[in-house]
């Protein structure tokens, strides 16, 4: 269970402060897959990094399993938007990094990492270097690295955000399959694609900007196990269209507001 309790975050830089999050509260039940979605600047990545223990809230607390998050921990693993692999290390070493950080002996961690590379479809690529792989394959290494430490909570920060549309689709469906096989891993998945959120998540937390806050929490009505066929069903198409419409509306309001701000500043 992840509980976000009245979390606010104010960043200060050069004397100017920026309110990234205001009074954000919601909960994620154990074993659920939730998606954080919202326009850029809504603080969704900040919130995720707080759950990972990389950023501290200015106010409020995040509790995971009843314990306050005060730093990173072995119960969580993070998957990054831009993969963040070690360019000078091969795929196996990269996938085993989390295990190495845990002090697991070389032979054992190679074995575990290999098994997870197989699961994400990278068997046989152990000795390749990241620059020899496509973006999609690099992110598979990132996912294998996170899964290899067997975290209770999987935190994913727009993991497919920098991939092309087709690769993205393939990755979404592979993640769906992988997650449903593993199940029970509480997952928080940041995205700005409604289609992605509706396909993968049990629940979508829609956020708005300036300041970042929760606008809406929507239960995704499609039963599991889901598969590729879901994305063609009329219900799914209608569901995502409605939510996308809301998001667009928010973005429009935000744009109008920033125009106002600018003209006020000029006047």
């Amino acid at each position, binding site marked *: 269970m992840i509980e976000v309790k009245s979390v606010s975050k104010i960043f200060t830089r050069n004397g100017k402060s920026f309110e990234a999050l205001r009074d954000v509260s919601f909960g994620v039940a154990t074993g659920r897959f939730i998606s954080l979605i919202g326009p850029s600047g809504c603080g969704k990545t900040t919130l995720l990094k707080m759950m990972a223990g*990389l950023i501290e809230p200015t106010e409020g607390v995040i509790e995971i399993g009843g314990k306050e998050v005060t730093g*990173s921990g072995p119960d969580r*693993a993070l998957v*990054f938007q831009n993969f*963040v692999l070690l*360019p000078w290390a091969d795929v196996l070493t990269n996938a085993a990094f989390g295990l*190495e*950080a*845990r002090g697991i002996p070389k032979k054992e961690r190679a074995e575990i990492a290999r098994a997870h590379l197989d699961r994400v479809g990278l068997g046989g690529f152990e000795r390749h270097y990241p620059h020899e792989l496509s973006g999609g394959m690099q992110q598979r290494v990132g996912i294998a690295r996170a899964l290899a430490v067997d975290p209770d909570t999987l935190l994913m920060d727009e993991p497919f955000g920098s991939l092309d549309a087709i690769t993205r689709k393939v990755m979404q469906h592979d993640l769906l399959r992988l997650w449903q096989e593993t199940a029970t891993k509480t997952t928080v998945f940041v995205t700005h694609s409604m289609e992605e959120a509706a396909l993968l998540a049990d629940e979508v937390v829609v956020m708005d900007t300036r300041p970042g806050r929760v606008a809406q929490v929507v239960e995704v009505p499609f039963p599991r196990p889901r598969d590729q066929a879901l994305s063609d069903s009329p219900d799914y198409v209608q569901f995502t269209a409605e939510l996308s419409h809301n998001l667009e509306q928010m973005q429009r309001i935000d744009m109008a507001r920033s125009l106002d701000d600018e003209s006020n500043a000029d006047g």
Partner: protein
Amino acid sequence: MANWLAQYWVQALGLILGAVAWEVVGRAGISPALPPISAVIAAGNELWSSERFIESVRTTAISILIGLPPSILIGVILGLLMGLLPPVEWFFRPYVNASLSLPLVAIIPIILLIFGLSQTTIVVVIVLYVLPVVMVNTFAGVRGTDRDLLDMARSFNAQRGLVIRRIILPSSRALTLAGVRIGVGRAITGGIVAEQVIGVLGVGGLVQRLGGAFAVEALYAVILFIGAVGVVSLALINRIERRYQIKET
């Protein structure tokens, strides 16, 4: 590979053109200080095999071989510490910055006063001249480590030792090697300039004596030799650098 070959050809062309221009200017007889390259090489042929030249080169080479490796080693270690521990950076920063802009000839007399007319003076000058560039480059390499990689390591609770070994050292390697490359050049320059100030030891001493005797052709022959040594040693380092990069990326 074709590019490689083209590079050699262009380099050879540049050297040949340079030599031709030198010859032409020299033969024009503008100044006795500008002899043609043919005269320089003729003088060089005699000089390069002479006992006093070989002895001078040996002396300078020994000073560099004594001074350079510890400068690199200590420079890399101090640079790493500066990058990893802010107080170490704060402590050394004024010294490093000052010594990077300090003219070499200004400090040599002081060192000469301390260590006397000896090889120790030369070695100390080399160390003082090489150390700061190696430090500052290694430091920059450590500080330039990708923040995302550090965040990633932090998210997995990686211990400091692992972060240094797996992330900071490999990512700072390129800049550290660049510092070493500059350091080698500075060791040669620093050593010879110090010898010249002292006036009796090594290649620098030889330059001083030849200059004093107006042996212009022989002087140019020594300068040609120093240039050639610089070219060869930097090419060697480049080769080592390339080998590392192919292995590690």
